[in-house]
């Protein structure tokens, strides 16, 4: 209450900004609301006209149909395993690498760091054939490691954690050294807890990225039992899905996006902070 009063309370300029923000937010949410609305409509009615979306009847059949598909829970599970695996892996590796680049002094450190950053400029599509070949040679396709491992090389994660570790004053390490802490203890007990905001940001982006990833799981997972939710959902769509099963399609979209939405709800604070931080910096 106080915050909203603070925002709108001062002058016509602020009110205009607030109005614009609300307008953009509503505009942004319209497709989601439209998707949600269509997902509750019988497909037969939507075949005639999507204008019927604004009138009853509404139904949950599109959602129950999703559960009829035998693989959906398996795909959800696969997505969860892959997303958690990728997120955990990125957090562990990026933290260790970030600490190393920020604190350890070794020959060629800056060159290696630049090489890592160059990874940001290489699109996935450029390496995907070579990657497919490697995993094929290793006979790893259709396994969790095959879907997870490529996602762990996060140049962005290493960069973010390096910058975050660099921002922590070295006095803190030195105080811990004088407090008889070992190097590992300084990393684990002193510095790592200070990077939690960065970890949360990186974790959220990694989770969302892994959950929504489509291309690599589509290539690597060819057996239905190894599909992630994005690949699985796509596999159920028939040739005439757009015209004959629009409601079902929309329900699939909502269902697939639900876990991401829940993650956002829980970590909203960190996402906003991360985006705001990026804007300020």
């Amino acid at each position, binding site marked *: 209450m106080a915050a909203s009063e603070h925002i709108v309370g001062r002058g016509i300029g602020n009110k205009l900004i607030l109005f614009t923000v609300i307008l953009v937010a509503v505009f942004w949410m319209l497709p989601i609301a439209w998707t949600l609305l269509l997902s509750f409509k019988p497909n037969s009615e939507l075949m005639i006209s999507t204008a019927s979306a604004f009138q009853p009847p509404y139904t949950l059949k599109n959602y129950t149909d999703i559960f009829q598909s035998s693989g959906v829970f398996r795909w959800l599970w696969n997505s969860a395993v892959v997303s958690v695996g990728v997120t955990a892996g990125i957090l562990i590796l990026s933290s260790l690498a970030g600490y190393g680049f920020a604190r350890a002094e070794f020959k060629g450190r800056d060159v290696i760091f630049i090489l890592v950053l160059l990874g940001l400029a290489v699109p996935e599509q450029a390496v995907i054939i070579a990657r497919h070949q490697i995993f094929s040679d290793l006979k790893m396709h259709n396994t969790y490691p095959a879907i997870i491992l490529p996602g762990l090389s996060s140049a962005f994660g290493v960069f973010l954690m390096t910058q975050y570790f660099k921002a922590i004053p070295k*006095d803190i390490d*030195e105080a811990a*050294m004088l407090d*008889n802490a070992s190097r590992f203890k300084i990393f684990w*007990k*002193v510095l790592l807890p*200070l990077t939690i905001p960065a970890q949360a940001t990186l974790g959220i982006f990694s989770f969302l990225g892994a959950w929504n990833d489509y291309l690599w799981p589509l290539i690597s997972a060819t057996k239905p039992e190894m599909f992630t939710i994005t690949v699985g959902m796509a596999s159920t769509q028939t040739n005439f899905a757009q015209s004959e099963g629009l409601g079902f399609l929309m329900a699939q979209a909502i269902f697939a996006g639900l876990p991401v939405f829940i993650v956002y709800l829980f970590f909203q604070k960190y996402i906003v902070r991360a985006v705001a931080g990026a804007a300020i910096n």
Partner: protein
Amino acid sequence: MQVSSIELDSVSKRFGSVEVISELSLTIHSGEFIAFLGPSGCGKSTLLRMIAGLETVDGGEIRIGGERVDNLPPGARGVAMVFQHYALYPHMTVADNLAFGLRNIGTPKDEIARRIEEAARILEIGHLLARKPGQLSGGQRQRVAIGRALVKDPKAYLFDEPLSNLDAALRVRTRVELARLHQQTRATTIFVTHDQVEAMTLASRIVVMNARKVEQVGSPMEIYGRPATEFVARFVGSPAMNFLPVQIRDRGGLATAALGDGSIVETDVPLAGLPSGGELRVGVRAEAIHVREDGSVPGRVEVIERLGDRTHLHVRLMDGSTLIAEDKGFSRIQPGDTVHLAFEGATAHLFDAAGLAYHARQ
């Protein structure tokens, strides 16, 4: 309570090709409060960090309590350091900050609790133990940082400009508290500062450093009253000592300095020992230059600084040189007035071209 001496034996330090400490030797006595005083970049913090083990030693030895420590890691040297920016662990409570070092060396829980309680009592931070550093004021953080050192019962305390982040009033208060703390603990203490007032008020001995070398080691009044070099004379004391080029004449074995305008300052500096040729300057502190009707050195007042208990007069002499003289607090002198200055020649010093000082006999 452990109290140990610290010996620096020809210690050297290089950063790349730059030698920042060159064969420096110094003994800090057990229980002594010593200040490393000097401008930024003079090497004082580097020297402290070498003692702490945070910088490697490229030459020489450091001994604490007779034991060589320059090859030991920081935690094994038995010293505690208070950092300029406190360096508290932000995610830990005050109690955990104090306990962290003790836990790392396996101190029993009840002993940790006892030491924290004792430190909290001495520093009056008992009510802050459950808070995190972010919830504390600058002064409170400083106390916690001191507390973290105190609980370790170290062989020596190392302070790296610990007061520079505090506001003026808090700095004065904390200074007094540090002095009181040292009186209680009688622990060997090294205090790095660029603030001469802190060094003068806290330390029993001051090491004045400049350009990576020691200029003078002495008690505060030795440093102030008998500066070894022109740098020390300029750096210690506010306002800085006045320097005027002079010609030297003999006055029964003592040096009489003739200023540029021909006026005379009779010093007690023995003529013997003064360099025979080259330029000499007389150094006189403002409090030794007074406005008097019978003063022999005339000048015109350009700027007046009223400090309450005294007034500083910036005076331009007839030969164009300037100096700062001192007058009483309620001085009626105004800018533009002509004054006559009298020098207390007995407290004057002479400095040669190399900046070396020559004093009156003690």
